[in-house]
C-alpha cells in the first residue's frame, strides 16, 4: 500500500512536469502566432508542431510506463464545493481557477466526453457494426486503393512538370567534359600531341655498339657507362624495361655519354650481366 502510494506520487509528479512543459510550449506557440504572424514562416510553425508532438509522445510514454499505476482505478471526488474565492487554488492554478464551484467542477473533473459527443460516438459505432465485417473490409481496401492512385497521379504530375520545365536547360554541364578537363590540367592528358602523356625519360633502346644486348638492358648500359653524372639522371631500370620503346627527348646527350666511355666491349658485357642480377631480383 505504501509502495503504491509512493508510486502514485512519483508518477503524478512526472505527469505534472510533462504537462507543464506542454503548456509552456503551447503558450509560446500561441504567442508566436498572435504576435509574430507577419514574420512567421512555415518551417517555424512546423517546428512548433514538432515540439508539441514530441512532448505529447513523452507524456504518453510516461503514462504507459510500468511504474505508473493505473490512473483509471483512481477516482477523484470533490469534497467541498463553495462559490467563494479560494486563494490557495488560485495560487496553484496560476490564477486560472479562482473558485471551486459547481460550474468549474464538471469541466475540470470530467472523465467522459460531452453527452452530445457520446451520442454521436455511439451512433457511429452502431453504424459500423451494422455493415458487417466483409463489407467493412471491402470498403477499407477500396479506400486504400484510391489513396494510392491519387498519390501516384500527384507524383507523376510533379515529376513531369519538373522535367518538362527543366529539360531545355537541364544539360548545363557534361561530366565527361569535366573529367577530361581535370585530367588535362592535372597531368596533361590530351594536351601533348607529339608525345603521349606520362612517357619515360631520356632512355633510347637499341643503342649502337650494343647489338647483342636486350632492349631492356640498354638502359643498364647507360647506367653503367655514364661515368660523369649526366643531366638526365637515368630512371630505375625496372621502369625503363617497362617503357622501352618510347622515343627519348635528348638522344644527343646519350650518344656523347656512350662515346666517352672507354671500356672494352667484353668487359662491358660482363659488367652488364653482373648489374642485371640485382635489378631482376
Amino acid at each position, binding site marked *: 500500500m505504501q509502495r503504491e502510494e509512493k508510486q502514485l506520487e512519483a508518477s503524478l509528479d512526472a505527469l505534472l512536469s510533462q504537462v507543464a512543459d506542454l503548456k509552456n510550449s503551447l503558450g509560446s506557440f500561441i504567442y508566436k502566432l498572435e504576435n509574430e504572424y507577419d514574420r512567421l514562416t512555415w518551417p517555424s510553425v512546423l517546428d512548433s508542431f514538432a515540439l508539441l508532438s514530441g512532448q505529447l509522445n513523452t507524456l504518453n510514454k510516461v503514462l504507459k510506463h510500468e511504474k505508473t499505476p493505473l490512473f483509471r482505478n483512481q477516482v477523484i471526488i470533490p469534497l467541498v464545493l463553495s462559490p467563494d474565492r479560494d486563494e490557495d487554488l488560485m495560487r496553484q492554478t496560476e490564477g486560472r481557477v479562482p473558485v471551486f464551484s459547481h460550474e468549474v467542477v464538471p469541466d475540470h473533473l470530467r472523465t467522459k466526453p460531452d453527452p452530445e459527443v457520446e451520442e454521436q460516438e455511439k451512433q457511429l459505432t452502431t453504424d459500423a457494426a451494422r455493415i458487417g465485417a466483409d463489407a467493412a473490409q471491402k470498403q477499407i481496401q477500396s479506400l486504400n486503393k484510391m489513396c494510392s492512385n491519387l498519390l501516384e497521379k500527384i507524383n507523376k504530375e510533379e515529376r513531369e512538370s519538373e522535367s518538362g520545365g*527543366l529539360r531545355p536547360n537541364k544539360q548545363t*554541364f557534361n561530366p565527361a*567534359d*569535366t573529367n577530361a578537363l581535370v585530367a588535362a590540367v592535372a597531368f*596533361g592528358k590530351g*594536351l*601533348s600531341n607529339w608525345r603521349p602523356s606520362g612517357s619515360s625519360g631520356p632512355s633510347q633502346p637499341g643503342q649502337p655498339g650494343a647489338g647483342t644486348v636486350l632492349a631492356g638492358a640498354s638502359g643498364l648500359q647507360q647506367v653503367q657507362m655514364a661515368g660523369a653524372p649526366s643531366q638526365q639522371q637515368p*630512371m630505375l631500370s625496372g621502369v625503363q624495361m617497362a617503357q622501352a620503346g618510347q622515343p627519348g627527348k635528348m638522344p644527343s646527350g646519350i650518344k656523347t655519354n656512350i662515346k666517352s666511355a672507354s671500356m672494352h666491349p667484353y668487359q662491358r658485357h660482363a659488367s652488364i650481366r653482373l648489374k642485371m642480377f640485382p635489378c631482376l631480383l
Partner: protein
Amino acid sequence: MEAPPVTMMPVTGGTINMMEYLLQGSVLDHSLESLIHRLRGLCDNMEPETFVDHEMVFLLKGQQASPFVLRARRSLDRTGAPWHLRYLGQPEMGDKNRHALVRNCVDIATSENLTDFLMEMGFRMDHEFVARGHLFRKGIMKIVVYKVFRILVPGNTENTEALSLSYLVELSVVAPAGQDVVSDDMRNFAEQLKPLVHLEKIDPKRLM
C-alpha cells in the same frame, strides 16, 4: 617525392605550410553566360576580370619513380606581370568528411627567365596549355572559369585549339594547413551554384 601528410606535421619554423583546397566542375559553352551572371551576383563586387594565361608544366625525373612537378604560368594579356611558379603536392586522402581536395601548395612570383632556369636545373617541359577565362573572388575563395586550349606547335601560343566544348570551373582557397572549416564554406558556396555547375572533389589519380 612524397611527403607525409602536411596537416599532421607541426609547424616548427620557417614558412607556414599552405594548403590548396580545391573543388572542380565544368559548364558547357552555352550555359557560360548564366554562370557568369550568377557568379557576378554571388561574388565580391568588382570589375569582371578576364585573363589569358600560358601554363607550362615541368618535370624533374629523379631516382624515384614519380617525377617532381613544377608549374610555371605567365600572363599573355598583361604585360609586365611576373611569372608565377607553383608546386602542388599529392592530394591528401583520408578524411572523407573533408569536402574539398586538399594538397600542399607553394607559390612564388619569378622573373622572366624562369624557363631557362628550370631547364638548367634539369627540368623538362612535359606539357603546356593556354587558359582563357574569367576570375572571381569571394573573401578568400577564388573562382576561376576558363577554357583550356591545346597548343599545336610547341612554343607558339597563337596557334591553339580548344580542348573541349566546356569551361572548367575551379573553386579554390589557399589557406594554412589545418583549417578544414574552409572546406565547409566552399561546399556551401558550391551549393549555390547548383544546378548550373556541380563542383566536387575530383581525384586526378582516378582519371589517369
